């Protein structure tokens, strides 16, 4: 495989703009294989846009996206589809297909990308549902019958359907109660260790950042500053100081 093996995702000179508003301007980012990276930033700083750029839902105005050693803009449809089978995405509200049951949601990517027999697909879907921390009965339910937390778990189960190497999470703990959020953090770190995932997580949850992220990328001034928590604590940029030294940061146990 081409490219450097230890880097899962590499962004170079990404420019995104909507009309006159420039969201990203020459953004560079390297995400290593097997790490959990948290992406933070103020509202409107382009966290979701960045994620959508990597997974190809948003076309960047300039710059290159390299995922698992492949330049995304140079791939044809079949090659793209193969790369897409190697990542899983959890959208903010789960984005489950409302006309399918949870089990059918989990099976949807399997049907598209594999030729597994029906019975094995049923078993694998049930396994993913259990791995995501849902009871076995949840498989037969429709998304509208689930609570917000359960929807996110079902979304994780679907994102894990094809055993991806990279997992994108858009605000996985937003809207969960603190106990549910802590359980979700445990779930993610547990899956990440046992499945060897690379996790890219957009979050505002300082507890999650402290608990599970190896590195943190802060979107600021249309670029991203990546570092460990300790490095960010030394950063003199006013927004970063405010973010990691504010009242909520102290509540999350970040020592200054």
């Amino acid at each position: 495989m081409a490219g450097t093996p230890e880097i899962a995702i590499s962004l170079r000179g990404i420019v995104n703009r909507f009309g006159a508003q420039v969201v990203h301007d020459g953004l560079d980012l390297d995400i290593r294989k097997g790490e959990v990276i948290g992406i933070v930033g103020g509202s409107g700083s382009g966290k979701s846009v960045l994620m959508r750029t990597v997974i190809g839902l948003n076309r960047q105005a300039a710059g290159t996206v390299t995922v698992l050693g492949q330049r995304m803009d140079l791939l044809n449809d079949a090659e793209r589809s193969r790369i897409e089978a190697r990542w899983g995405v959890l959208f903010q509200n789960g984005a489950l297909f409302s006309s399918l049951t949870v089990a059918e949601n989990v099976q949807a990517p399997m049907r598209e990308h594999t030729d597994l027999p029906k019975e094995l697909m049923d078993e694998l879907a049930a396994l993913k549902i259990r791995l995501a921390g849902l009871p076995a009965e949840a498989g037969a339910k429709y998304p509208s019958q689930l609570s917000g937390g359960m929807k996110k778990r079902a979304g994780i189960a679907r994102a894990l359907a094809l055993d991806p190497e990279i997992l994108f999470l858009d605000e996985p703990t937003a809207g969960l109660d603190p106990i549910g959020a802590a359980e979700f953090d445990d779930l993610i770190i547990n899956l990440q260790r046992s499945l060897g995932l690379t996790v890219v997580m957009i979050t505002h949850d300082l507890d999650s950042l402290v608990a599970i992220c190896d590195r943190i990328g802060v979107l600021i001034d249309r670029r991203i500053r990546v570092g460990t928590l300790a490095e960010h604590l030394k950063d003199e940029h006013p927004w970063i100081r405010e973010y990691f030294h504010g009242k909520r940061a102290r509540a999350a146990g970040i020592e200054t």
Partner: protein
Amino acid sequence: MSDPGWVKITLGDTLATWVFGGAWTIDHAARLAGELSLPEAARARAAVFDLTALAQMDTSGAWLIARLGRALTAAGWQVETREGDPDLAALLRRVAETRDVLPAQPRPRSLGDKIAELGAGVEQVIRDSRDLVAFLGALTLALTRLLLTPWKLRWNAIFAHLEQTGLNALPIIGLINILVGVVLAFQGADQLARFGAQTFTINMLGISILREMAVLLTAIVVAGRSGSAFTAQIGTMQVNEEVDALRTIGLDPMDVLVVPRVLALVIALPLLTFFADMMGLLGGGLMCVVLLDITFGQYMSLLNQAITVDHFWVGMSKAPVFAVLIALVGCFEGLRVSGSAESVGRLTTRSVVEAIFLVIIVDALFSILFSYLGI
């Protein structure tokens, strides 16, 4: 990719060995599942799973191995695992420890279940009809209250809906009715010519368009255009919890969402029907000029002799009733949307079908009524 997954099975007298190697991933899972079966004939009751040659494994591969392990244990075997890579062994343990994986099989439906479903369906229809009548009652109350205090009506919303349901529907209603007028005149002239009664084409044309065709076609087009839009608009608001938000700030969805739509349609549908009448007679007239060899002026005077103003009012009097039905069903179904985007689609379809069904039923009732009254 690394080499595809393989398994080597050695069945000894006392010990059976499974050597797993290569990549046990979802890409190879379908084939590997076929290679793992319970050795029915084996005499051994002790098994060793050798994982040392495994290069790659994901949850699918781990599940296949764990499933075999479970089946063997259930058949009374002793299973021992020779672990290789610690990460892969940890994944296998995690998958093997996950309980309750086998999905519950749904019970096959018996005849009794089907009868019960039929009963539940009938009960649902009765309950829906009762709810619709209750909704009509609530609407009447709200309308009475608001018509007594007209300054509280939401005139902006009413005019916006008038534009959408009335003005914007003019082209399609006009086109359809011109064409129907043409078709009626053509077919009528053709059939009546056999009796030498071709001149009665104009009587038939005027009566059928004014009494039935124009108002019925207009109502059906409006049910498809605006009734569905009402359901989809209100249903989407329901999904976004906008309707609940209205209630929390002290606004009654009936006043804000339903009454303006009903009033707008009650104003728009008679106007559209009048327009449809004119277009239908125009289309029919053009055809008569061609077929009957008369001038348009002669057509007008023949039409004047053939019909009375009663025919016109019979058709027009149905329009506001149809308008209430269409708007009522559209808003009712919209407010019944719950939870998902899928239910918006389902209820929108229902709203159009119900509205057209009710329009035709009520039209039949009108026919009976008018024949009693001798109009």
